[in-house]
């Protein structure tokens, strides 16, 4: 059966998709936390830059962000190094998806930090902890609990947005499906297979998120 012949290729594609998603998640969480801190910063210009960046990234289509990072990245690196540097679609895709994730994650984190009673930060200051220690030891672990649903949702969106990286040439799932579909002239078959695989990925993710949510709210008392 022709479909089975493409099985190994499709598996390669799924692996690439998962790789992109996980790298983007890691970098994206970093961008998100930085963005949240930046938007709450007392340094005015930093605050404006962060708010501006997150608003712009959230306001333009994801495809445009990917193109800007891919083509803009090649140009920026060419200016830096003096000659043409090839930016891999993987790298450009991960950076772009991380920026997208981070811009929305910053909003989620801001909301999560806002729920934590300020008395805790004051107690930390009374104990002599530095601002950074207060953030790392007191606020961050608690914010995680409130941020989880929002971040989980952003993860699902991230998984689906990896399909867009196929448009700058990365051979992930969508790309492999396009290849198979055009060679066998069975587009419906292969795009359906791709759809089912995405459904599997998102369903498994949702199960994991439910598990994480249960664990995170384990010690939550009634008034939290």
């Amino acid at each position, binding site marked *: 059966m022709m479909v089975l012949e493409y099985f190994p290729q499709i598996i390669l594609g799924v692996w690439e998709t998962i790789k992109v998603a996980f790298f983007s998640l890691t970098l994206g969480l970093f961008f998100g936390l930085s963005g949240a801190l930046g938007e709450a910063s007392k340094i005015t210009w930093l605050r404006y830059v962060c708010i501006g960046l997150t608003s712009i990234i959230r306001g*333009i*289509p994801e495809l*445009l962000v990917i193109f*800007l990072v891919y083509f803009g990245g090649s140009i920026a690196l060419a200016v830096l190094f003096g000659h043409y540097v090839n930016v891999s679609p993987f790298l450009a895709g991960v950076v772009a998806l991380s920026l997208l994730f981070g811009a929305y994650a910053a909003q989620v984190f801001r909301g999560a930090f806002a729920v934590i009673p300020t008395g805790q930060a004051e107690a930390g200051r009374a104990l002599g902890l530095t601002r950074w220690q207060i953030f790392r030891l007191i606020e961050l672990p608690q914010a995680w609990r409130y941020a989880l649903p929002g971040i989980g949702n952003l993860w699902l969106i991230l998984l689906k947005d990896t399909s867009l990286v196929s448009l700058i040439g990365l051979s992930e799932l969508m790309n492999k499906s*396009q290849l198979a579909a055009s060679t066998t002239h069975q587009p*419906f078959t292969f*795009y359906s297979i791709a759809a089912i695989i995405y459904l599997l990925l998102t369903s498994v993710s949702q199960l994991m998120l439910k598990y994480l949510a249960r664990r995170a709210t384990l010690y939550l008392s009634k008034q939290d």
Partner: protein
Amino acid sequence: MNPFDYLPQLLNGVIMTIGLMIGALLLGIMLALLLTLGLVSKKKIFHRPANALVFFVRGTPLLVQIFLIYYGSGQFEWLQNSPLWVVLKEPFFCAVIALAINTGAYTSVLLKGAIDAIPEGEILACQALGMSTGLMMRRIMLPRAFRIMLSSYSNEVVIVLKGTSLASTITLLDLMGVTDQIIANTYATMEFLLVAGVIYLILNGLIMLGFRYLESKGQRY
């Protein structure tokens, strides 16, 4: 190279983008109403298909949905010989249908959430007055639900706007497609990508302004 030479092309792109958006939103709202009725229904025969469609749409990327409808329908001989082919061979209609199904599914979830948020007392009052379910739905529940979900729906409309950019992948000349075309001719990649970005931000801003106006009108009472 005079950048203003490309203004008419860009304008055509914007018109196509707005056309896709409005088509998708109108069709999407109709689909959403149908789906919501299915989602709130207690009968499995309405409940199950609605849930299944929402599950599928929320679990797969928009790109896959667009490709399935546009390229996928070309696989079936019987489809090509049917009267539906007139619609399905056109990329514009395929894009509108895909976007409409996508936004319809997400909007139906919003609508269901809004209906659930209607204070129970209002529904009880309707039933006490002897209103039929249909009448109650039409005159009280849906308008109330729309007002509750207005701000969430503004996000959904922005998502549709951003979704129209994917229509460029099936040969449509929306703003994104036109930008690709211009870049292919002029090699001025960053300039026109940034121009496209600015235009999308302007459209975004207009949508938000529009919704803020709607919300202020809704707050009269």
